[in-house]
C-alpha cells in the first residue's frame, strides 16, 4: 500500500465526515475506505465530532402534530414492517452472498408458484381455445404470466448482479407522498444496474418516474419508467461512473419526456 497516498486519505477523513469533499475526492476516499479498516475506525471518531456540530443550531420545538403523525403512521406500518424485516436481510453489507440473496427474495417461492401456474395455464389454454367468450380471460392470464416472467427475469438479473464481487446495493424508501413505496437498486462493477420498486402510485398521463443519481450536490439523470398497475416497477439502467462510489439514489415524478434536473415531487430516496 502506498503510504503517502494513505496519509493523504487520512487527512481528508475529517472533511469526509462533514460531507464537504468535492465529488472526485469524495469518490477516492469512499473507495479507500472500502479496504482500510484503520481509516474506517478513524472516520467513526470524526463522525462523532461532526455530529456534535448539531448543537451549534438553536434547539426548536416542533408542532405536537408531528409526534402524533409519526406514532399514527408507526402504528399502522408497525405490524407489517416487523413481518417484512423479519423476512429479509439487513441492508448495510454489500458483500455478495448467494445464500442471503436467496433467503431475502421471496420470489423464489413466486418462481415455484409461477411454474405451477404456467402449467395450469397451459392446460386451460387447450380447453379454452375454441371458446371466444373466454378470449378476454386468456388475455388477462397471459398478461399475468408476462408480468410474472418479467419479475422472474428481473430477479434473476438481480441475483446475477449481486453475485459479482464489488457489486453494490442500496435501498430506497418512500417519502411522505408515497410512504408505502420501496425500491432496491443493485449494480455491478461496470455500473450495470437494476432497479426494483414496489408500492408506487400510478404515473398520471403525460408523466413518468425518473431515476436520479445524486453525487455531491449534482443530480445526474437516469431513465424514465412507469409502474405496472400492481405498483411494481422494473428498470435496467447504467450508473454513471461519478455516482458509482457515493451517491444518493432518488426517484421523482416528471413529465414523461424527462428532465435534466429534478422538477417534480420526490417519491423515493436512498438518503440516510
Amino acid at each position: 500500500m502506498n503510504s503517502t497516498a494513505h496519509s493523504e486519505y487520512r487527512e481528508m477523513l475529517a472533511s469526509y465526515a462533514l460531507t464537504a469533499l468535492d465529488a472526485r475526492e469524495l469518490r477516492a476516499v469512499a473507495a479507500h475506505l472500502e479496504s482500510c479498516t484503520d481509516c474506517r475506525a478513524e472516520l467513526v471518531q470524526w463522525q462523532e465530532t461532526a455530529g456534535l456540530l448539531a448543537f451549534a443550531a438553536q434547539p426548536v420545538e416542533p408542532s405536537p402534530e408531528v409526534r402524533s403523525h409519526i406514532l399514527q403512521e408507526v402504528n399502522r406500518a408497525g405490524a407489517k414492517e416487523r413481518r417484512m424485516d423479519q423476512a429479509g436481510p439487513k441492508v448495510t453489507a454489500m458483500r455478495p452472498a448467494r445464500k442471503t440473496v436467496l433467503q431475502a427474495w421471496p420470489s423464489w417461492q413466486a418462481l415455484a408458484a409461477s411454474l405451477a401456474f404456467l402449467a395450469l395455464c397451459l392446460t386451460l389454454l387447450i380447453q379454452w381455445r375454441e371458446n371466444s367468450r373466454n378470449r378476454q380471460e386468456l388475455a388477462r392470464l397471459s398478461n399475468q404470466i408476462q408480468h410474472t416472467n418479467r419479475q422472474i427475469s428481473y430477479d434473476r438479473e438481480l441475483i446475477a448482479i449481486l453475485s459479482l464481487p464489488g457489486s453494490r446495493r442500496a435501498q430506497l424508501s418512500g417519502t411522505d407522498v408515497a410512504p408505502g413505496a420501496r425500491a432496491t437498486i443493485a449494480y455491478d462493477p461496470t455500473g450495470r444496474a437494476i432497479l426494483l420498486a414496489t408500492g408506487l402510485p400510478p404515473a398520471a398521463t403525460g408523466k413518468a418516474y425518473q431515476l436520479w443519481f445524486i453525487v455531491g450536490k449534482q443530480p445526474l439523470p437516469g431513465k424514465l419508467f412507469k409502474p405496472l398497475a400492481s405498483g411494481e416497477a422494473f428498470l435496467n439502467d447504467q450508473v454513471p461512473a461519478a455516482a458509482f462510489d457515493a451517491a444518493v439514489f432518488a426517484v421523482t415524478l416528471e413529465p414523461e419526456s424527462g428532465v435534466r434536473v429534478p422538477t417534480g415531487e420526490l417519491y423515493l430516496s436512498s438518503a440516510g
Partner: protein
Amino acid sequence: MHPEQAQISDSSLLKAVAAGDEAALALLYDRYRLILFGLLTRILNSRAEAEDVLQELFLQVWRRACDFDDRRGRPFTWLVTLARSRAIDRLRLLASRDRLVVSAAQDIRETTSDAVTDTLHAEQMEIVNRALAKLTEEQREVLLLAYLDGMTQSEIAAKLNAPLGTVKTRMRSGMIKLRELLGESLKFRSSHSG
C-alpha cells in the same frame, strides 16, 4: 419525562425500537426532538419543510433501527447524521426546483424554545458552543458552512472568495481542534452504551 425513563440508554432505546417497541420510539423522539428539529430548521430555513423531514426521519428510524450498529458510533450521532443527510437532500431538491423557502426565519425565532428542558442537552450545548468559540472565526465559519449549510469545500471557497487550499486547511485544523477540545467528555468508545 419520568426520571427512570431518562436512565434508559440510547442504545437500549434503539434496540427496543428495532424490536417493534413504539413507546421506545416515542421516548427517543421526546429526548431528541429539540436538537433534531433545531438542526433541521437551521438547515432548511423552513418550519414546514423541517417538520416533513422530522417525520420522515422518525419513520426511517422505525424501519431501520435494526441497521444501527453500536460499534460504529453513538446512537445520537446516527440520528443526527440521518437527519442532516435528509435535510441536505431536501435542500438540494428545493434549490433545483427554485423554491427555496426563505421567509420562515421569523416564525422560527418566535417559536424557539427559550429553555432546553433536558439538562443533559443544555450541558452538551454549552460544551460544544464553548469549544466552537475557541476556534478562530475562519475555522468556525468553514465548519458551520459545511455542516449547517451542506456546502462542499469548493462552494465554501467560492462563497468566501478564498483559495481552496486555505479552506481545506481551515476545515482540517478546525476539526482537529474541535476534536481535541471535545475529546474526553464526549468521546466515543465502542463499549459506550449511552
